[in-house]
């Protein structure tokens, strides 16, 4: 397939604990914001991809595309449910883009929704990991533990410290204070991060993203149709890779627990499509998948922002804070926005789009022309990277 697609509109609900709102309420809000930006209504949508990673964690919504038809009051079109762990939103976008480039449709919608807080946090994704994974291979392992073992390995290999991890959380919480849609907007200190309850050593509560409800959506069109819309953003590159099955990293001694092959593979594809090779030169902002503080540091290396083993220096030296040379997670990241799993990838696309449009308010990065989003799914086996470019 050749050609590119553009974002004609993007939408995102506030992320948080929406006890008074349903899965379909959130889906509708995100879609309506995206459609309104594009000057469209639901009836213009010709096909949609609905990303929800864990419909069976209490809400039983998002098992199929049907739930989007209900949210939009728009039926009679193909709607596909997408599920690929934490890269679900990105995969929805990739599938929508491919349908446009294949000529199947002219206006496509990619939506991500996750309603996690109809259940207590310990009954949602934690329970999922503890009780409904493989009955033998993973028993006792949570999402936090899945990545804590990387932190432990990097502490041994590269001298990573708990203070380095805390610095990521401090930075992203400071950014979130400027994002009205973030779940947690209160700044935290390194001391607070280090003193918060241990979740999976060496990760404390404030090294972990909260359990959050939210939805995000983008309206996609082909590049040649983009100029008909008021504020289009070009999708310059999409990379997606599945590097292994779920259990393999923990059972194959070649896996080094330092980085994620899936992200490196996805970055390579996305950068090639976008015609770029050095993100430190070519982009002005990056949104990375900081479900846990360690993941942001690993992403620096997998995305090529620094050399192997040097990730902690970037956050220590302030390179990646707002005002630094290359701000990362200017919107607060998953650590502060929260991580409604299916929505996260598209929330990051929304964030970068607003920056590239110059519409990011208090957290606007001056001169933002090109940005990256990155997601890591499962045990690090699913990687998504997109490169977005400023209005044409």
């Amino acid at each position, binding site marked *: 397939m050749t050609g590119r697609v553009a974002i004609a509109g993007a939408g995102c609900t506030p992320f948080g604990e929406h006890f008074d709102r349903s899965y379909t309420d959130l889906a509708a809000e995100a879609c309506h914001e995206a459609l309104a930006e594009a000057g469209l209504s639901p009836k213009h949508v010709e096909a949609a991809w609905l990303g929800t990673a864990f419909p069976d964690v209490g809400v039983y919504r998002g098992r199929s595309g049907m739930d989007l038809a209900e949210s939009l009051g728009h039926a009679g079109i193909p709607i596909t449910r997408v599920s690929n762990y934490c890269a679900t939103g990105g995969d929805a976008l990739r599938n929508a883009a491919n349908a446009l480039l294949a000529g199947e449709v002219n206006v496509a919608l990619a939506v991500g929704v996750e309603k996690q807080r109809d259940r207590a946090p*310990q009954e949602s994704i*934690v*329970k999922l990991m*503890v*009780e*409904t994974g493989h*009955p*033998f*291979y*993973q*028993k*006792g*392992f*949570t999402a*936090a*533990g899945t990545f*804590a*073992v*990387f*932190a*432990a*390995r990097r502490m*041994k290999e590269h001298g990573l410290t708990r203070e380095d991890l805390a610095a990521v959380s401090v930075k992203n919480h400071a950014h979130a204070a400027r994002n009205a849609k973030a779940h947690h907007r209160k700044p935290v200190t390194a001391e607070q991060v280090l003193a918060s*309850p*241990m*979740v*999976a*050593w*060496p*990760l404390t509560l404030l090294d972990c993203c909260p359990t959050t409800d939210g939805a995000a959506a983008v309206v996609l069109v082909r590049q040649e149709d983009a100029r008909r819309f008021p504020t289009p953003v070009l999708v310059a590159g999409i990379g997606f890779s599945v590097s*292994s*099955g779920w*259990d*393999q990293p*923990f*059972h*194959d*001694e*070649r*896996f080094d*627990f330092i980085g994620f092959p899936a992200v490196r593979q996805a970055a390579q594809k996305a950068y090639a499509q976008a015609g770029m090779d050095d993100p430190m030169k070519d982009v002005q902002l990056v949104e990375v998948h900081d479900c846990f503080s360690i993941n942001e540091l690993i992403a620096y290396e997998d995305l090529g922002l620094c050399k192997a083993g040097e990730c902690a220096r970037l956050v220590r030296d302030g390179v990646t804070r707002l005002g630094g040379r290359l701000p990362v997670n200017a919107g607060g990241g998953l650590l502060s926005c929260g991580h409604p799993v299916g929505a996260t990838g598209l929330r990051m696309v929304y964030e970068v789009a607003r920056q590239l449009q110059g519409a990011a308010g208090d957290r606007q990065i001056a001169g933002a022309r090109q940005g990256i989003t990155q997601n890591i799914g499962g045990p690090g086996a699913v990687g998504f990277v997109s490169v977005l470019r400023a209005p044409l």
Partner: protein
Amino acid sequence: MPDTPAILNAAARVPPFALSAEAVARAYGRPPSRGARRFAAYDEDALTLATDAAALCLRATAPSHVRALYVASTTWPRAAAAQAERLAAALDLPPSVEIATFGGSWRGGATALHIALTRPTWPALVVAADRLTAPPGSERETELGDGAAAVLVGPGTGLARIASWTSTSEPIEWETPDARLIATHASRLASAAPRDGCARAAVSAPGPRAARAAAGALNLPSSLGAMEQIGFCGTAHPLLALVELLETARPGERALWLTCAEGSESATLEITATPTRTFGPALERARPMNEYGRWLASRSFFENGATANAFSSPALEQRDADFLMRLRGTRCASCGATHTLPAPACPRCGASEGFTRVPLSRAGTIFTFTHEHYVPSPTPPVTMAVVDLDGGGRLLVQVADAAPDDVRIGARVRLTLRRLHMGGGIPNYYWKAVLE
């Protein structure tokens, strides 16, 4: 008599956690008393204890050589559920191994040893294990213990030769508060045992008071299988006393081995060699756990249903038994890689055929780990470790029994069978790592 069997090897499994009678007395506001018991962690039962003892005993013997397995316990987690067959699978014994189980009395372990010596299906492995619990607050609470022992029997010189064996039977009720009645039974059984010029004795009886009375009646220097430190370990105790004897006696000594139970089993032994010590080191590795509430919580975890919602699949367990129980991995003929998990394709080279099952090593090194504080457990945190096995293969497993601060990248571990969870009241077993 070249076909006369000898004791070829013997090993003990005594868990590290120790509860003192003094701690129990404190909890109930009673005057202090003496003695202690050992107890196994919440994820252990008779089967896991038996597996560990047997694995220690077979360290120098290929599992495929074992021809018979005799197993004794009064505390199998379930009455009839292939317990001995699970043990055989966990030891990777051949499917042709002959199996017999002994229960229903305290003498089961001793009787099993007698059968192994007389029935010429050698080498034969005798394993006895019990996990005994008395009512909380009762005097018996720290008199009972958890433990297992295994003895390998067959032709050869080995560790000891059996010079004579004597058995008697009578239905004795040992669970009585009448200390003088217990002492009388034990003294009577001991007095009837033939001495045959023995200079020392190893004695087992259903509790410290009975054992002391039996030793007194023998009037020989006697060891009690450390009963006052570890508690009476049921069918395992006669074999534990035997292991202790073999580890402490000098080659050339002649010793009496006596089991007082529902009758008696006694033998005179000629000691010929000393085994690799497993009992002595286990006694030294005591980890006092004298918060009474913690002991109760640990003990009742599986019984009271406090575990997270259990999930299991008997179909999956059966299908993957070669991996889950026998710990066999897959070798790919195309690229030579060894993989732990069963899979339809080689994750390294993509081959979809040409796999053979190979035994995985049960020892390895921690590659990385974490302590999970939010995973439901009676003894949080749950430590998870990625373990690289010697000779190939990697596992993600829980680390059992460890103090979190002792877990390090690079630490040596061995694998031990444990209860992973309960599914519909049925224990599901899998391997965990313990620090070496």
